[in-house]
């Protein structure tokens, strides 16, 4: 079997040298070509020996640098022939991704790289990562044991391009003291209708709209999935935008009236993290926040914190998943990729998964990890953590318009913020977003797939 990646790179360099574009290639620019960079033939892994050294780019989600170092130590103990270099490639998913894109075409690419829900697809269409089916089979990674949604978030055209690592979902957090004062049962509302019935009493208890909503990219268009899916809407069906579907518009209208007419909810004035601060300080009675925020909220709050599923809509529950997976870079030799695959297998096995989940608050991505004693101990200590795991059953893979189209999340966030902050008609706001997403799809996606 050939090494398509190496030969392609070699050809690229040779072509650049022969053609007049040597200077450009030397600057790391693109070559002029109509073809995209995606997908390549699978490699026969049976004759490949793992490389002695690999590099891992992470942003240590959930302040996990010590845990990650520990996993490397354990892995190297089991595999003395392989050294893993851990690199802090940014403070968040976006910075890791931006660095990975900037590094394309240079020798400074990692072997294993963080691939968040809104970035892995771009890595894929740029040809920067490899599909993992062959490697998973060769290394006997038990992919069936992964939570289905969390694993399939990385699927496109029947192949998976990353494995789940630090994964989160939104949760409904509520202030149990306020709940008690308002005379409500000690649980999250089952449905948004129920929340509406409770809202007046809650509003009276806190003296303002009881539900705090967080603004900002990578966030607003994420939790909105709950309202939208719960009312039968969606951002898109595969590549077809459904932003003008009545159900989607209905969800937008529901949010608009909840914030602007009924005043049961308000956008946090404290900026991107304000909704968490507002809730922890008792300013708001409840909020939707990530599972990753659980530890922080418990540390800050001076009251009893309750957690529950996101409320259902008329069409049922709706809960998105987020966070980051790990992907393997294509610009490396099969030996490097194999070593990276071995480490990835180790990193996502049941033991490490449970340990990581216990240490950070991220979801246990493997079903078998949930029953492990260390995980059970966590649930015993912080029962709120259990909520997220139970809620996993109701999660669903993200709509492509948000997760796959470059900047799709940003355009949707702008639309939803306009609906909330400027009381704009959802039809107007969503049609503006649809136009932007369509352009982005045509320019950045269509010709690559």
């Amino acid at each position, binding site marked *: 079997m050939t090494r398509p990646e190496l030969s392609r790179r070699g050809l*690229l360099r040779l072509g650049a040298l022969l053609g007049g574009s040597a200077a*450009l290639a030397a*600057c790391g*620019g*693109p*070559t*002029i*070509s*109509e*073809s*995209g*960079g995606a997908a390549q033939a699978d490699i026969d892994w049976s004759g490949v020996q793992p490389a002695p050294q690999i590099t891992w780019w992470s942003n240590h989600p959930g302040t996990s640098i010590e845990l990650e170092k520990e996993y490397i130590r354990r892995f190297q103990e089991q595999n003395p022939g392989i050294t893993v270099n851990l690199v802090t490639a940014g403070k968040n998913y*976006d910075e890791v991704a*931006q660095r*990975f*894109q*900037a590094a*394309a*075409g240079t020798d400074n690419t990692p072997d294993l790289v963080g691939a968040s829900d809104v970035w892995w697809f*771009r*890595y894929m*269409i*740029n*040809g*920067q990562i490899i599909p993992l089916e062959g490697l998973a089979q060769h290394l006997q990674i038990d992919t069936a044991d992964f939570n289905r949604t969390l694993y399939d978030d990385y699927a496109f055209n029947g192949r998976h391009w990353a494995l789940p690592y630090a994964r989160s979902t939104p949760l409904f957090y509520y202030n149990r003291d306020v709940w008690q004062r308002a005379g409500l049962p000690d649980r999250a509302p089952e449905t948004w209708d129920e929340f509406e019935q409770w809202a007046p009493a809650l509003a009276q208890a806190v003296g303002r709209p009881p539900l705090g909503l967080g*603004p*900002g*990219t990578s966030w607003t268009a994420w939790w909105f999935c709950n309202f939208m899916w719960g009312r039968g809407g969606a951002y898109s069906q595969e590549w077809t935008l459904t932003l003008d579907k009545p159900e989607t518009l209905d969800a937008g209208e529901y949010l608009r009236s909840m914030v602007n007419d009924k005043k049961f909810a308000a*956008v*946090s*004035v*404290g*900026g*991107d993290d*304000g909704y968490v*601060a*507002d809730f922890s*300080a008792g*300013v708001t009675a409840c909020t939707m926040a990530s599972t990753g925020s659980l530890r922080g909220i418990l540390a800050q709050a001076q009251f009893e914190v309750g957690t529950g599923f996101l409320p259902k809509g008329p069409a049922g529950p709706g809960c998105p998943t987020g966070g980051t997976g790990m992907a393997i870079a294509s610009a490396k030799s099969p030996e490097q990729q194999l070593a990276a695959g071995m480490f990835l297998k180790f990193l996502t096995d049941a033991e490490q998964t449970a340990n990581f989940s216990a240490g950070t608050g991220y979801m246990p991505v493997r079903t078998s990890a949930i029953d492990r004693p260390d995980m059970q101990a966590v649930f015993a200590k912080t029962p709120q953590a259990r909520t997220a795991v139970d809620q996993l059953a109701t999660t669903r893979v993200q709509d492509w318009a948000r997760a796959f189209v*470059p*900047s799709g999340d*940003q355009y949707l966030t*702008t639309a939803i*913020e*306009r609906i909330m*902050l*400027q009381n704009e008609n959802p039809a107007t706001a969503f049609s503006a977003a649809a136009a932007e997403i369509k352009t*982005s799809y045509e*320019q*950045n996606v269509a*010709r*690559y797939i």
Partner: protein
Amino acid sequence: MATATTPPDAPVRRVGTHRAPRSRPRSRRRNQLRNWLLFAVLAGPNIALLVVFTYRPLLQSFFLSTLQWNLGSPTAIPVGLANYADFFSDPGTARMLAITAIFTLTTVGGGMVLGLLLAVLLNRKLRFRGAARTIVVAPYVLSGVAVGLLWLFVFDPNFGVLSALLNAVGIGSPDWYTDPQWALVMIIIVYLWKNVGYVALIYLAGLQAVPRDLLEAAALDGASPIRSFLSVVLPLLGPTTFFLSITTLLTSLQSFDIIRAMTDGGPLEGTTTMMYSIYLEGFANGRAGYSSAIATILFLVLFAITVVQLRFVERKVHYS
């Protein structure tokens, strides 16, 4: 004391290498060669660095602006001037340019006025003025990221010190983070806070060239100190003003750190300036070609403004 009214190039021809009137053509040519070598040794390294690390990328960026290229992709397709057409036809462009203009004009204009007032104040014979000068300049030396982070805390409408102060006098805090207009005001305030000390310092230096008695007279003359300041002192500060207008304009149009740390261009893109848009389109959206087109336009705008400023100052110099 250096006076500032020297025409940029006038004396050069006479200062420096002394041109002997009797020199014969041959030795002149040798002199020329020697001068070229000397120039190469002295200025060569700097100019070479500029060519490699500034002009080479600039040229490459011109080229990239004619491509449709996803950052990170090995291939791109040429699209001619389509990126420029997109820029000018995008409905959001006008707003982004307006935001850039407001930010630039207020930070440059406001900074110059406040800086001048501070300089005049700190030039008066007041006790502790030395300490005050130092404190006023201090924020300028801080990192933009650190400044952004610390002001996030001051502005927080619920937990910030500013809202506590505003509440104390009976005014509620504006929604700094969720109202696009107030967010822009917030960014401008922070930018001014950080940079006004630099303007004040340079003006303070300029004021030293103004004869003291003129200033004293301006201060003592009860009739109209403001008018005497405007008519007597300000013109003498002309060169300083020119220098500041160029440097603060360039810094303001290229400011990045504070926006990055505080708003990331939001809310509702209300703090996305041209510079920030280059970053967002190129890195966050991965539209490297489009981003390069905006960068090229920004470069041309800066170029045009600077040429106009240089023209202006040269005419002024001839006039004086």
